[in-house]
């Protein structure tokens, strides 16, 4: 496994974790926001967790798409020219 593959695998794992974390944060955020605790500060923390989670999910979706595209282009620039056509027959 090359360094590039290792970094790519790690990126995929981090992204997967990030999606799970987004879900957990979103759930926790709503749970805190909807909890029967009459403290404004706690409720605001819940609200900010939800906002952060949504933002993170948005940027994750956009970013990973764009980065994957660039990564794809970069890794294709380096490929050699196709072999010249061979005479038929």
């Amino acid at each position: 496994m090359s360094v590039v593959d290792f970094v790519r695998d790690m990126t995929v794992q981090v992204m997967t974790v990030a999606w799970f974390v987004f879900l957990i944060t979103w759930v926790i955020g709503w749970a805190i926001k909807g909890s029967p605790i009459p403290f404004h500060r706690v409720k605001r923390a819940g609200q900010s967790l939800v906002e952060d989670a949504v933002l993170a999910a948005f940027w994750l979706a956009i970013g990973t798409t764009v980065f994957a595209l660039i990564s794809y282009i970069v890794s294709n620039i380096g490929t050699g020219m196709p072999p010249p056509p061979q005479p038929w027959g």
Partner: protein
Amino acid sequence: MELLTLAVALASLTYALGALILGLPIPYRPLKRWGPRLMADAVAAMIIVSSLGILLWLSDKVMEIIGVTWGNFYDWMTVRFTVLLAVYGGLQYVSTLLRSSGLDILLPIVSGTVSAVSAALTGLRLIFFVALALQRLRYYFVILGSVFYSIPFRIGRSVGATMISIGLVAYIAMPALPLFVEAFSPDVPGFSIPVNHTIVVDVKDSVGTPIPYPLLELRDSGGEVEGVIVGDMYGRVVLGGEKDMLPPTFNYSIRVGFLGYYFDTVPGFITELSNGSTIVVPNLVYSTGVGVLIHDIIMEVVSNEPGEIQLRAVSVLASPEVLVTKVAYITDVNVHIGNITYGCQWVRSYWLDIPLDTCQVTGLEPGDMLSIDYLPGPYPGPNIREKRIVYGDSVEEMVESLTTYAAAVLYRELVLPAMYMGVVVSLTVAAARVLGGSIRLLPR
């Protein structure tokens, strides 16, 4: 290309980590702040990686616009090296000249100039290697820099930014060194080493036998001794070359010191045109350790062999004088006039650490045959410190030229390139800062 892919992959990882941190369910601000920061870093890294080709092309274009090329830079460096090496060689020659001329007092000036030149050579060599590395490794600098730049958590951001800016800015700025140096250099007066003649003369006795280790005494028109030079065992005397600083034109009257006496010679002078000539000592007949000095008497040389000298008196003038002088350790000396043995009274004397015995022969009549036979031996060289010729004007001229040149070399070949390297480093650091980080040259 592998490195570029790695840089992109690292930027993606940074971005994913940023999103992960942003989405963490921990409401701790300092930690959360790293999320957007990492995402922004990743985007910046991606922009740099994507535009590397454009940046490299742009830097090449800027070089084209300024009108500098690496080829010209290397040509300029080669010329500088050649000039400095030639000057270095010239200075070594001058110091040899000064040492042999007894002008040791001027040696510090020359060695100061030598130090300046060798420092300039070292500096230029350093710049040459830096430039070579910069030119050859430019792409590695830029691509490796972008890899460092993309590492998450800003670990290699400063190093990466610096490497990228080295590959872009220093690469353009370095070949412009000749333009900078030429723009600010003063008009350096050419370094002149006085043109020196080399004059070789052979000193011989009246019958053409070489006189070993002749002491040549040279006087100027005022009668002042300008030089005392000892020849080699074959009677060859070398003036100029590496040992003397002769004036462009000169006419020194000469005498030859030998066997304790100073003889007039034919010709009696040496000029700048005397190279290859023979100086004859007419009053002397010499053979292997024994010399016959003749004054006011005309004698014909019958035989002049090692161990035997035979002379016949032809005519006698007002106060005839014949002296037989030998080196003290020449033994079995018999002096005859005709067939009669002459009873010599040997008088011992010392001349420049050479022990000499002299016998005066009197009573010679025209037609008498004077013969001396002995066991031949070598003649030792006189123990004397030579006084080499140093022409005053050429020394003054040389010292002045040397000091001016040393200052000019220091300024032009060392100070200006060093200043320019400082400018290049500042530009590189500034560019690295623009890219988002730089090595810190000074502690805050």
